[in-house]
């Protein structure tokens, strides 16, 4: 286990060491202590490391992550795992806004609550939030799955493309072109798999599915008010 203390090492040193690790590494276990809300912690990683971050971070923790398995024992600021490509990131505490923004792959698990715009513009990432999510979540979400065990705020899935949204709790309101959809066996399978992988104590059958009504896909004068 390699430990990096952010009160002693600089952010540049931290990211440089972690980014330098390649596919073939003996040193797989890493730990960062005293993050104290620092920004851009563990960004641009590109190897299947196991990284523990002991404490809370600022913005963009795990940004553009590839392959790494990161666990944050604390909360994270805005934009956690923004544009993530692959790997698995778990936040034990809460996440601020824009969690998983524009993510293209991998799995982001938030044990606490995520704030507004969770999964905004997501492009293939899977996000599982054990708690609640805030307003404007999954705005313009293109693909991937957003799973929420708690409640969702206003305007869920506004301008949604093909991403799938599964919510167990209450949805305050749905955004433009987002509707409740039928839960079919294939959806239950996808959902249950994600719940299992994120250690969520829930049954897929308790969830509702939401998706795009696809009425904004090609312009129709009658929908002009929705833009």
């Amino acid at each position, binding site marked *: 286990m390699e430990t990096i203390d952010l009160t002693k090492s600089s952010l540049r040193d931290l990211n440089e060491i972690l980014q330098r690790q390649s596919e073939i590494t003996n040193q797989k276990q890493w730990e960062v202590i005293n993050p104290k809300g620092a920004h851009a912690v563990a960004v641009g990683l590109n190897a299947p490391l196991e990284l523990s971050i002991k404490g*809370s971070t*600022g913005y963009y923790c795990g940004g553009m992550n590839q392959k790494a398995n990161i666990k944050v024992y604390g909360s994270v600021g805005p934009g956690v795992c923004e544009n993530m490509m692959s790997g698995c990131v778990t936040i034990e505490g809460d996440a601020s806004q824009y969690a998983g923004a524009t993510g293209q792959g991998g799995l982001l698990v938030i044990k606490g609550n995520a704030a507004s715009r969770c999964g905004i513009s997501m492009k293939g990432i899977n996000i599982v939030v054990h708690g609640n999510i805030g307003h404007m979540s999954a705005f313009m979400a293109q693909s991937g799955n957003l799973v929420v065990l708690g409640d969702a705020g206003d305007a869920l899935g506004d301008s949604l493309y093909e991403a799938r949204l599964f919510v167990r709790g209450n949805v305050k309101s749905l955004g433009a072109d987002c509707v409740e959809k039928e839960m079919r066996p294939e959806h239950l399978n996808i959902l249950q798999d994600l719940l299992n992988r994120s250690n969520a104590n829930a049954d897929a059958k308790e969830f509702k599915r939401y998706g795009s009504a696809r009425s904004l896909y090609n312009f129709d004068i009658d929908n002009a008010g929705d833009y």
Partner: protein
Amino acid sequence: MCGIVGLFLKDKSLELTLGEMLTQMLITMSDRGPDSAGIAIYKNPKNSFTKVTVQSSQPQIDFENIKIELDSLFNQNLEIMIIDTHAIITIETEYLNSIKEILATSFPNLRIMSIGDSIEIYKEVGLPETVANRFDISKMSGSHGIGHTRMATESAVTTMGAHPFSTGNDQCLVHNGSLSNHNSLRRKLRKEGIECETDNDTEVAAAFLTYKMNEGYNLGDALKAGITELDGFYTFLVGTKNGFGVLRDPIACKPAVLAETEQYVAFGSEYRALVNLPNIDSAKVWEPEPATVYFWEH
């Protein structure tokens, strides 16, 4: 664009370290705003006395003159404390209007930073650490305070452009964001008799709240009125004599983090600002909901 911080103490035993904690929080936010900084501290209200905080760009001359002038007029009932470019004039409340008149006629180049029973506002151009050191903020005690570090958007970097803005007794406001209808509002408020001194959008927001409260609204309702009448992106942190309030606009893009324990309520633009507060690891930490007024009062 900016960084804002606030601390409201529930536990009186922490009052001696208010200034120190607030200074630390503010310095952490320096990256968000290098242009100017300011702090409002609520402290030591003296029964039937009011404090007027003034600023001068030539303190040696001005404060010497004002001491002479006011001593001769008010003698027993007056105290003047000078700190760097600011002076706190503590006067019996019944003489407040006279003081304001004297300041307006004989000392027009002195800028009034705040008026109130508890409030003292210190603000200057420069980095938070520099500003805090000039006024020795970390040695100050108090019951609550708010601070701001500024990156100017559409108005000039000047002392008066710095936040907090105070447009009413014991009231002050700091702001992170950008209002889009501040020019029209400024004109409207002018018609109602409320003049803004700067081009700053935040001053307009402060003036708007004062205007509403002059019309009889309490702070909570004045903030609620702001949700419809103030257009743009904002996180507001407001101070009053006994309390402290937070409001985010309905779109809520600008960051905001609250933390509460049995001893205090703290606010910061980023979680980083709160990390050194006592028992932060066991605090309830959350982000305020959009278009929702949060308020704490002693």
